[in-house]
């Protein structure tokens, strides 16, 4: 089972992922993919220290599938967290809706 660590940045709430070396990154593809339980546990413990140090909140381990440079969370909820809302509006040029069926 592949996993990554995610959270929300305390200062602005933005969804972030724990990258290699313990930095927090916004792009899910840049997350450090954890290949076994020991790696997951160690990364989660390190992330919880960042929680205690007021860097991130809502820290969680989530299941993913990593392939060809893309990291895709397995649960729809986590995919939407990673990719953004799937909504569209003719009056909102800022929105780049995506189709959940095209990912994963």
């Amino acid at each position, binding site marked *: 089972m592949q996993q990554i660590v995610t959270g929300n940045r305390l200062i602005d*709430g933005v969804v972030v992922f724990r990258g290699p070396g313990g930095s927090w990154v916004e792009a899910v593809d840049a997350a450090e993919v954890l290949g076994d339980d020991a790696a997951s546990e160690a990364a989660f413990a390190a992330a919880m220290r960042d929680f205690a140090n007021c860097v991130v909140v809502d820290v969680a381990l989530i299941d993913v599938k990593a392939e060809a440079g893309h990291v895709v969370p397995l649960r729809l909820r986590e995919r939407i967290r990673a990719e953004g809302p799937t909504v569209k509006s003719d009056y909102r040029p800022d929105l780049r809706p995506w189709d959940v069926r095209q990912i994963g």
Partner: protein
Amino acid sequence: MYRYDEFDAGFVNERVSQFSDQVYRRLAGDMTEDEFRPLRLMNGVYLQLHAYMLRVAIPYGTLNSAQLRRLGRIARDYDRGFGHFTTRQNIQYNWPALKDVPAILAELAEVEMHAIQTSGNCIRNVTADHFSGAAQDEIADSRPYAEILRQWSSIHPEFSYLPRKFKIAVTGAAHDRAAIRVHDIGLEVRRNDKGEIGFGVFVGGGQGRTPMIAREVREFLPEADLIAYTDAILRIYNLYGRRDNKYKARIKILVHETGIEVLKQDIEAEFERIKDGALKLPAEEVARIEAYFAMPDLPARPATSAVLEAAAGADPELARFAEVNLHPHKVPGYASVTISLKPIGGIPGDASADQMDLVADIARAHAFDEIRVSHEQNLVLPHVALDDVPAVYAQLKTLGLATANAGLITDIIACPGLDYCALANARSIPVASRLSERFGDPARQAEIGPLSIKISGCINACGHHHVGHIGILGVDRRGEEFYQITLGGSPDETASVGNIVGRGFGSDDIVDAVEKVVDTYLAVRTDADEPFLATYRRVGDAPFKEALYGA
């Protein structure tokens, strides 16, 4: 208009500076999330799926243009250029940074707004009929009473830690546009045979996991007893409401478990004890508050408008807008205009900063500076001269705000669902968008007539699916989005909770399923004058079940 008095101003400003300090300490690392969470929630700040969410109270859905313009400015300066109007007549911002929230609250305080009582187990923002003070059929404007209740409940020491959140709604007309029967307390302004004003009082309604229609506990409560009686209900609830189980803590469960007759006796006994005390509401006080809500000076006009008739004659789209989005006003020659936030295929309840600015401008120029937010997630200009409707329409059209669908099948209520909400099981907005596209053709909407679709992304029912004529509830079935259909719900004076029609549908099939329901209705209605709800109540589930699942 709601006058935020000196007490409010002092209190809100103090709260803003207190919260600024708390945010500062949290960001500096001097406070843990466990310490901070209750403080941010008290100030309307939630942590959602993608970001923080700030919920701003709009008491009884009433705004002036300066306030709406400020809401737009906040959307532009601190968010992504949009705000989302909710079924609680509030506005939510989906992407504020925590570090900016103190500045946002300070900006709100400048226009006498705040985010207090939008979270937690307190008495929440009191909601009201969005046509209050304008509707032809109303007995009295419901907002002064909502305001009196707001003042009484604001920061009420005894009622800040109730067993659970508590929602009150008020309607001024027998036709209930405020869904009072699905609130913890619902009040309907009534007039008795002596011509006095009072209230029908309903207790124990609610949606969520255990939907219930409120029970009438008083047919006519004199106006002077409004606060004492409400206080008595709250005291009984505070005393007996369950605190051991979050799912059983709402007053509806108390009504259900104790029985309405016993509860009524308890309430009446408590009321007897306190009714002649300090909570008596003097007529002068009501008059003082009512003065703030006085109808603007509307110059006399002929009942019909030659200007509107001529313009509508030349423009069928305007004609349709005038037919669908105008509501009868108590003053001849005027109407209340619904500004639909449900563009075909769009996001129910969302408005851009530019749209908010435009509506504010129109309200100033043509609507006596008044705007309302409806629980149906639309905006309303309560007082517009019929002569001005063509100009208002033309301006609304420039930013996609002239959709003629108030009360029709594409006027869909949808909660934020899994696209934004941390509690969701399934998405709501994309389902609403697809349904809106499917039924968007104006001729088809006209043929179908009044029909409400309401969608919630989980059983919390923020999208009011239980009281949709067609309700849609998103559930999670082994990691897949799945949608349950209920039929026959209604939020008005004939309130009913919809019945689950059968097994649910996957995301790919839900739109077709709803279309089958609608086509079945068209096939079995007596004629075009029998609306969906009446047909459903006449024929029951059977033809719909058959259409959806076969014999």
